Every structure is written in C-alpha cells, then in structure tokens.
C-alpha cells in the first residue's frame, strides 16, 4: 500500500513530448524490414532455391545464418524473400482498407442522411462476420491467389477504418468553415477532399499502422493454416508451417521466421505507442 495507487497525473505525457530510444529502435526494425522487402532478394547470393548440399534442419552457422529448412534450403534467404510477401501483401491490403474506408467515410459525412445510413449499415454487416471466419469463407470460395488475399484482408479491415474516419469526419463536417464552403457553393467532392480530408489525415495515419499489424497477423495466420500464400512462394507464416517438423528439435528454421513476425508487429505497436503527440490508442 503506497502512493503508487493514487490516481496521479500520468507522467507519460512529458515523456511523449520527445521521441524516446524505444521509438527509434522500433523505427529501425521497421525500416530494416522495409528495405529487406524492397532490395533484399536482389542482394542475396543464395536465392534460397538450392537444396541438397546442406543437411536438413542444420543449426545456425557462418554459411547458413539461420540454419537450413526441411529441404536443406537456407532459412535466411527464405525469410528475406518472405518479407516481400508478408510486408508487400499486408501493406497493399492495409492501404486499400484505409483508403477505401476513409473515402467512403468522407462520402458518408459530406452527403445526406440516406447515403450515410446506407453505407453505415452495409459496413456494419461486414463486421458481423468474425475476421478469420470471413477469410476462410473467401478462400474456400475463390482460392488463395494473391489478389484474393489482398481483397479479403482489405474487406475485413475496411469497416474499422470507415468507422474511425466517419466519426472524425462528422465532427469536422459540423465546423463553421465547412458550412462557409458549402454556402459559397463548393461541390461535395471539394468539401470531401479539400475541407475534411486534410484534417483527418493525421489520426488516420496512426490508425493505418495499427491496421497494418492486424493484417500482418491475419495473413500470417492464414498462411500458417496453409490457406494463404501458396508454395513455392512463402511468406513468414508459410515458413513456420513448412518447418513445423523442426518444432520438437527447437531448430532455428522455425524460430527465426516466427521471430521475424514478432519483431515486425511489436515494432509497429511500440512505434505508434511512443510517437510524440496524441497517442492513437489513447483516443479510444
């Protein structure tokens, strides 16, 4: 029993004013994976396709930094190549979800009650199917080609982005300067893009980061179930699945792809939490 239980004013506020070392470290991890996704595969001497000369599930060594996988392929090369799928697909899906969500929200806020109600109901319907369930249904119906995966993830995370953007946009829409713009005869598109959008871009960017983490987790889980990215291509989720046989050995082949996922998602979470200014989580 001490003073720690008293509702003291949060000291976190003063810490948030500058960017802490934790945020820098997270940003560095994030940047590393982005660079790996962009130029990584072209820097590799071993394309990760060669097999046979090395032992299966070999431990970490100078020749194979992360050991070898179930076919004797270099795990480091596989992880770097997987970055392209994990980061690339997730980023595309997130941008689509947030972009579409924001645009629809702007339309809902700037239009009359009917369009607003119609859009909101339609989006609510999407949320009444749990995300993973929706993904399973989509994969069962359309297979797991890359465009299907992107569209599925985008559809699942669109409602969340729409709701946040709409609640922000409705508040902006009630501002005097929007009324002024309307009175001077600006069109709906102008109000949406020039009056409301610039004022909700900040919070939506923070939301984009969180949404990216959800999408990465969803796609990794799908691949882990064997329903996501299909072989021979492999994202980090598929790498964990492929090498599940190494689990009883505790081999690097299964630990490293798993660590890659964890490092990416935790880095994004920590970065958003430790950014200066308003915390994205604190608002809700």
């Amino acid at each position: 029993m001490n003073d720690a239980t008293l509702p003291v004013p949060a000291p976190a506020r003063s810490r948030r004013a500058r960017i802490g070392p934790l945020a820098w470290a997270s940003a560095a991890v994030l940047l590393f994976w982005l660079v790996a996704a962009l130029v990584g595969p072209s820097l590799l001497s071993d394309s990760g396709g060669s097999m046979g000369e090395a032992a299966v599930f070999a431990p970490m060594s100078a020749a194979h930094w992360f050991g070898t996988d179930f076919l004797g392929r270099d795990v480091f090369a596989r992880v770097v190549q997987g970055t392209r799928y994990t980061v690339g697909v997730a980023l595309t899906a997130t941008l689509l979800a947030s972009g579409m969500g924001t645009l629809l929200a702007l339309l809902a806020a700037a239009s009359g009650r009917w369009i607003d109600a119609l859009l909101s109901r339609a989006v609510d319907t999407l949320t009444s199917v749990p995300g993973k369930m929706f993904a399973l249904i989509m994969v069962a119906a359309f297979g797991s080609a890359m465009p299907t995966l992107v569209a599925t993830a985008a559809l699942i995370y669109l409602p969340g982005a729409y709701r946040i953007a709409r609640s922000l946009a409705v508040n902006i829409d009630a501002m005097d300067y929007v009324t002024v713009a309307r009175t001077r005869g600006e069109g709906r598109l102008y109000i949406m893009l020039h009056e409301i959008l610039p004022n909700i871009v900040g919070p939506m960017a923070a939301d984009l980061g969180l949404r990216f983490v959800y999408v990465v987790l969803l796609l990794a889980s799908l691949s882990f179930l064997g329903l996501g990215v299909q072989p021979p291509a492999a994202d980090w989720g598929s790498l964990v699945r492929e090498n599940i046989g190494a689990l009883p050995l505790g081999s690097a082949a299964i630990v490293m792809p798993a660590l890659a996922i964890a490092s990416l998602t935790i880095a994004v979470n920590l970065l958003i939490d430790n950014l200066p200014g308003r915390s994205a989580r604190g608002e809700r």
Partner: protein
Amino acid sequence: MNLLILRLALQRVALAAVSLLVVSALVFAITAVLPGDAAQAQLGQDATPETLAALRHQMGLDVPAPVRYGRWLAGLLRGQPGESIVTHTPVADMLASRLPNSLLLAAITVVVAVPLALLLGIGAAMYRGSLFDRIVSSAAVAVVSVPEFLVATLAVLVFAVELHWLPALSYGVSFDSPLKMLRSFAMPVLTLCCVMVAQMMRMTRAAVIDQLKAPYIEMVLLKGATPMRTVLAHALPNAVGPIANAVAMTLSYLLGGVIIVETIFNYPGVASLMVDGVTQRDMPLVQTCAMLFCAAYLLLVTLADICSIVANPRLRYR
C-alpha cells in the same frame, strides 16, 4: 425501469437475428453464387453438356439463386444443412461429433482465463505504474501483437522441448485418466488462455483506471479510505459494466483463436473441421460451420451489448 431494460434487450436480440439473416445471405452469396458454376468446377472443362446438365439438376443448381438460398436456409433451420461433397455424410452428423469437443475446450479456457484476467487487470489497475503493472502490461502488449500460432509454437518450445512436461503435439483427446486428460488439454488451453487473458486484462485494467480518474474517487481518497477499499468497494462496482462487456467481447475473440489452436494441436473440434473443409473446398461443410461461428459471435456481441445497457443507466436513454 426493468421493463425498459427488457425492451432494450429484446431490441438487441431482434437486431442480432436480423444481422444473422443478412450474414446468412452474405455467406451464401460468397460461397454458392459468386464463384460460378459448382458443377462445371467439379467436372472440369471437357464435360459433355448432358452430364453437366444432369449434375446441375442433381446438385439443384438448375433453379435461380434466390430459390436455392431459401431452400438452403430452410435446411439450416431444420438442422439438415445437407451432405458433405467430399465424404458424402450428412454435415449435421460431422458437426455433432465435433461440437462437444470444441465446447469443452472453450469451457475449460473460460474457467481458467476469466478469473485470472480479472485478477491481473484489477491488480495492475490498483498498483498502476508499479513494477508489477509494467511487467503485466508489457507482456500483454507483446502477446496481443503476435499471432496465436506464435504463442502456441513458443508454448511447445518451452513446455515440451525444454522442460519435457508435455508432449509436443497432442493427437486426439483422451478421457481415460485425469492425467491423460490434463496432458491433452494443457497445451491448447494454455495457448488460448495466453491470448485471451492478455486482451481481457488490458480492457479490465483500462475500465478500472477509467473509474479511478472520476471525481468521486477523489472524494473517497479525501475521506481517508485505504487504496484497497477505494478500488474494491468504490471503483469496481462502477466498472462492472465495462468489464462484463470486455469479457463477452474477448469470448467472441475466442472464436477466431480456436481456429488456429485446434489446427496446430490437431484437436478434433469444429474449427479444425472447418479448416479441413476449406482446404478441400467442401462448400456445404464450410457454409454450416461459418453460420455456426457467426451465430455464436453475434450471440456474444449481443450479450456484451446487453451487459453494458444493464450496467450503465445512461445508455438506456439513447
């Protein structure tokens, strides 16, 4: 007053029923209408028009989609969702053998996870900013931001590979002896609990801290109540609504987690049945499982909604 609550609760239930109906149309549209002709897909490109027409008639594809939807929905409601394309056994029988396993897994998880999460959440809120709070909160963030299969993999590495306490991958469920039962349930329950406790604990902590910031707590502190009494007697009763809401929301999350956990541990439940169905594109099975999960999900979300209405009088007048 109670009549008002009842009316609002009934309203929510009716809303959930309508949502379920819309969801069923969505599921049917995605699985049965949009992918195109199932008979063509089954026979391949070089099927003769006659066999194609015969199979279409046999599968009931020669009637318009709305009629098929009506028949399908009626079948679901009567408990006869049709036959599996792969095994040719009734889907209802396949589900009946798996459903008790899944419910048992969920029940054990809830019994373990809910008290643990409440204890940790309230504790972390009481000693906010302490070492205990920091450790528990950071661990929760870490668990929430990694996929479930990672938690499962880690659990296997620690408890099976390093400590040798449990078998690495359990095959099937055994009820022969209490020890065997414990061994077959330990890993799946542990993994599900990790994820659920993390989520529930965060929401509980936030709910209690929210109350601790209220002006009336300042009054309680001024009158000299001990911190324990402040939290347990004053803040907690007011946080019950949000906490009940958090528990129900997290339980609905269990539905997603169970898909991964049942698959990774080879647990014979409904979720692993559905994943098999998706892999083999066994549409009747996928549709039925999907509707089962969506119904459970809507039920839990509605329950969460009703909990917050009952606990918070202000929500009753919206």
